[in-house]
Structure formats: structure tokens, C-alpha cells
């Protein structure tokens, strides 16, 4: 499954958990950073397109380029680059959040084993060829990871709906209070 949505759903869940314990992070910019971080390893597609245009051969060069951002060192460098340019006003925080985001991405990717592409498992590439994986196994010929993906999506949607409801409920209650106050004022007059 093309899992960009699942990755940002997972990023959103991480954001909700962290912002619950650290209310300072309850800001749109941090939410954006968590989601952006969870997409960083997939910048491999941009790199792949660039190499495809340069070399015109998708077999060898592109395959290798697929590895470059989809590993801890590559993602770390991209996080560093983004934090030092686009988000330099909150450099340390943005670097930390982007790092948490892409580590969440890797956690999801390695649990796709054995159906994952190799670039999802070689996290320390090119310095080590060791593969990292979580084998969730199968249930009646269906990979349990697929079920996990939909569960993550559902949890994120529920969190999102709760957030929207909470905000609209807050607005609704504050409006009722305001109306009650106005009514009291009129009654006094």
C-alpha cells in the first residue's frame, strides 16, 4: 500500500501523545513538523526522479538513490538541512521533532517484514548491511502489518474527530456562557 497517509497518521498519533504530556507543543507548527518528519524518508522519490532525469536509467542509479534518504543517516541530514533553513528560528526543537517523526516512519517500515522492500530494512546503509525488522507474521494469508496500518489510520481519524469536537464544543460552551452573561446584564437593566 502506498502509505504516505498512514505515515502522517502515525506522525499525528505521536504528536497527540507528546503534546498531551508537553502542552507547549500544542501548536500548528509542531503538528506540521511531526507530519513533515514522518514523510522525510520518502523524499527518496524526489531523489529518484532527479537521478532518473540525470542518468535516464532507472535500474541501477535510481535503485541506489532510493536508499539514500530512506536510512537513518540520510534522513538525519535532511532533518538537519530543513531545521537550519526553513525552521531555523526553532532550530533545536524542529530538529528533534523531525527526528522523532522519521524514526516513527522507520518503525512502521521495518514492521512490514518480510514483504518490505530492502530499502525499508537497511537502516544503517551504506555503513552497515544489517537488516532491522519486526516480524508481525500472517493471519490466514493476510499480513498482520496491513491490519495494523488500518488500525493506525482509524486511531488517527478518531483523534482528529475528537480534537475537532473538543474545539467546537469549547466554542459552543463559550458562546452559551456569553449569551447567559448578556441576558443577566439585560435583566439587571
Amino acid at each position, binding site marked *: *500500500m502506498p502509505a*504516505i497517509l498512514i505515515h*502522517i497518521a502515525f506522525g499525528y498519533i505521536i504528536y497527540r501523545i507528546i503534546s498531551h504530556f508537553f502542552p507547549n507543543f500544542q501548536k500548528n507548527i509542531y503538528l506540521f513538523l511531526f*507530519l513533515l518528519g514522518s514523510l522525510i524518508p520518502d523524499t527518496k522519490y524526489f531523489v529518484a*526522479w532527479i537521478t532518473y532525469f540525470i542518468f535516464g536509467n532507472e535500474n541501477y542509479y535510481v535503485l541506489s538513490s532510493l536508499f539514500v534518504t530512506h536510512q537513518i543517516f540520510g534522513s538525519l541530514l535532511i532533518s538537519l538541512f530543513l531545521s537550519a533553513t*526553513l525552521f531555523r528560528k526553532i532550530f533545536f526543537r524542529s530538529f528533534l521533532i523531525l527526528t522523532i517523526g522519521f524514526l516513527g516512519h522507520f518503525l512502521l517500515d521495518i514492521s512490514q517484514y*518480510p514483504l518490505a522492500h530492502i530499502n525499508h*530494512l537497511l537502516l544503517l546503509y551504506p555503513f552497515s548491511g544489517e537488516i532491522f525488522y519486526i516480524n508481525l507474521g500472517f493471519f490466514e494469508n*493476510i499480513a498482520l502489518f496491513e491490519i495494523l496500518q488500518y488500525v493506525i489510520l482509524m486511531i488517527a481519524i478518531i483523534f482528529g474527530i475528537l480534537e475537532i469536537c473538543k474545539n467546537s464544543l469549547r466554542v459552543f460552551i463559550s458562546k452559551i456562557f456569553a449569551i447567559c452573561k448578556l441576558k443577566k446584564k439585560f435583566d439587571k437593566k
Partner: protein
Amino acid sequence: MKFTKYLYFSIALISLISLFGLYFYSLENLTKFLDAYPPFDYAFQNIEEFEGKEIYTTLEVKKISKEKNEVIGVYHSIFPRSNNEKNLEINLINEKNFELKEGNKYKFKVKISDGKIYIIEKYNPLIQWNFVIEAILFNVTAVIIMLYLLSKLKINFRKFLIEEK
């Protein structure tokens, strides 16, 4: 103020140069690790190199020929195809007669033997999505969400900075 400006600029520059360095270092070391866990898109185009290997892959079944026990599988590349369109199609031998349906996508465990690709295991997806619908639902939605969030932030083009409104 100027010091931090130069500091961040040098960090950005160093990380970008290191990324390029990492790319070319990766390029040199690629073939070292392919044997241990071959990527299917590379292996299917270089079958001779991966004789006897077992590989996991996701393919869409395009055509089934029951007499020959042959299946034509297709994998979707992220690149546009013109000259090498045929490379996309992979002939698989369904020796164990797994139940397959044309147009459906499955995950397979295959083995390369005698220049042919044999299906050893077949795994079903939880939901059979049409490729286009799946791509739109799971990618375009994500892009829209990211753009919506970005619109809620202040982008200072002059300073090349993203801040909170």
C-alpha cells in the same frame, strides 16, 4: 545575530554536501548487499544474477494462462514508461495452482530457478484496492492535509522561513 545566521547557513551547506557524499557512497556500495535480500524490481530485470534466490514481491495479476500455469504480473513503477514498457511485465509460473484473479493485486514469495520465476507463496491483501483509487486516496489526501497545515503557517519568502502565524 550575524553569527547564528552564518552558523545555520554552514549547517545547511554541510548537511547538503554530506547528503550528496552519502548518495555517491551508497551508489558504490549498492551491490554489496543486494545478494542478502534482493529487491524485486532490480532482481526481475537481472534474473541471471539472482539464480536460486527467494524474493517477496507485490504484483498485480494482468493475465492468467491456465494451460501453461503461467501468470503475467505487473508492478507499478514510479517512473514514466516508454521504451522499456515490457520490463514491467513479469512471467510467473504458478506450479502450486494458487487461486488468482485477473486485475487483483497479491503479495508473492517467488523463487528464481532456471531463468524462470516460480510462485512459492501467495498472500492476500486485506482490501483489494484499484491502483488509481488507492494512489489518490492514500497519497493525494496526505498532500492535501500537508498543504492545509502549511496554509495555517506563515511563510516568509524573503527570509526563507516558516513560522507560526
